[in-house]
């Protein structure tokens, strides 16, 4: 699967409270949540983000709470992929579980600026900064994670597991 979009660039330790402030967690509808995505650090994000755009961030993206509302809000905002130097572990699980593509790649983060155009081939993990004409490779997923992703997320994976047990 190939993705192409404009870069939104953020710093280190982007936490789930700024991705989606808790004052909006009295609903769990992703479209509603997306209206307030990144509001406290980038108030223009929700209005300017286009379908397919890509978040590029420094280390420890998604630290803080376990709220799945954070990747849900980002996904519903139209963001097609997050590329960061590293991800906080609960956010990483949540993103994989809900089918929001995330990649770890240090050099593309160092080289990319807001507004650059990135192309990402999710199956190979190849990234290209079209604006700067540079190519990169993301850290590959462990094999188990690929099984999960190709099953269509954790819920589909669980359905299969339960069907195999003959419980359904």
């Amino acid at each position: 699967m190939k993705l192409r979009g404009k870069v939104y660039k953020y710093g280190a330790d982007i936490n789930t409270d700024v991705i989606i402030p808790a004052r909006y967690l009295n609903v769990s509808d992703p479209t509603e949540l997306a209206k307030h995505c990144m509001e406290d650090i980038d108030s223009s994000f929700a209005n300017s983000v286009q379908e397919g755009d890509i978040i590029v961030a420094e280390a420890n993206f998604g630290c803080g709470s376990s709220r799945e509302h954070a990747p849900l809000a980002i996904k519903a905002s139209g963001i097609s992929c997050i590329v960061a130097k590293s991800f906080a572990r609960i956010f990483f699980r949540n993103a994989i579980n809900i089918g929001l593509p995330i990649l770890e790649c240090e050099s593309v983060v160092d080289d990319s600026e807001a507004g650059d155009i990135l192309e990402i081939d999710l199956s190979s993990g190849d990234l290209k900064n079209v604006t700067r004409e540079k190519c990169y490779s993301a850290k590959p997923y462990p094999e188990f994670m690929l099984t999960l992703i190709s099953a269509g997320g954790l819920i589909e994976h669980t359905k299969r597991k339960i069907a195999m047990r003959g419980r359904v």
Partner: protein
Amino acid sequence: MTLVEKILAAHCGKKRVTPGELVNVKVDVILANDITAPIAISEFRRIGIETVFDPSRIVLVPDHFVPNKDISSAEQAKLMRDFAHEQGVVYFEVGQMGIEHVLLPEQGLVVPGDVVIGADSHTCTYGALGAFASGMGSTDIASAMACGEIWMKIPPTIKFVYHGKLQKWVGGKDVILHTIGSIGVDGALYAAMEFGGEVVEALSMDGRFTMANMAIEAGAKAGIFAVDAVTKEYLRSRAKRTNKVYRSDEKAEFWKVLEYDVSVLEPQVALPHLPSNVKGVSQISGIAIDQVVVGSCTNGRMEDMRIAASVLKNRKVHPRVRCIVIPGSQQVYVDSLREGLIEEFIEAGAVVSTPTCGPCLGGYMGILAAGEKCISTTNRNFVGRMGSPQSEVYLANPAVAAASAIAGEIASPDDV
């Protein structure tokens, strides 16, 4: 193997596990709250089975936005309540509930050797009981509610050893803030933190809960303590199930061993906007505050109430300050009442609330306006955490929070 590796090995049917290995782990307790359960429930419905794997293993606690703060919160709480009654899972209604991570240990629902997963990042609190406990998202919880197990990567363990003897007014909160300050908010990313040394052995259970609670603030998957006489005494009248006690082997392979001498450690304060932005209280001067919060899953237990009351007793909260005290559970509330602490809080000019996560995450019951500053015994001071993105949160222990309420600015209990 380390303590964490032994617990996880026992739960995946293996004699031995090593860090980095992916395993399916059987879970003993699954937890969610009024914010995270609604998504978990809708994902559970998508799996297409009628009933959860074992209702006695699933605990649902309304604590974030209850008593319901608005109509939307009421709908979410109702959705969770209806599911809880339909499935017959363990559920605590308003009036019995407490902040989940205060409540579950108090009710004896977590015992040593357990694997606990919760759709709340501070699930790591139960590591204080020698259990492996880790926060996850709602979809992970939905899957676990269906099949009673979860995939996990075995984390490496970092051993933290604390030497010396803590000064007066210094407790678990200061030790963990100091630790996060030294390793950073991703200093234990994906790892387990095992706490040891004579300092933590001398800590009460409440102090240990505070430390384990904030392991996530260093990015950790879990924080854990070995079981000792203090743990056993705590469990004696509470534990609802039999437990299994593990210890790290003498020759266990730790990723790192970090040693700290905390004999001269003073009360610590984390300045905005990261829990790692830590300074000693004596290094901070002239920061006027508008609000004080004493409570939360980090510091809402009996010892915290006693410490805050000992500072506030026969004193007055500064006239420009709102001081909000939130006992972490109905039990903590009634015990505080019987000990006379609630009266001391009220006489001092503080307000006392029913148990709730409320202000900690900027939900309700103490939201900050733009430009306001709060010193709080909670766990996070991110931008906008307690309200306006232009407000500021300073994290501290209950003694410093109470002293600051009196002084009207960040202050040490020795200075008021």
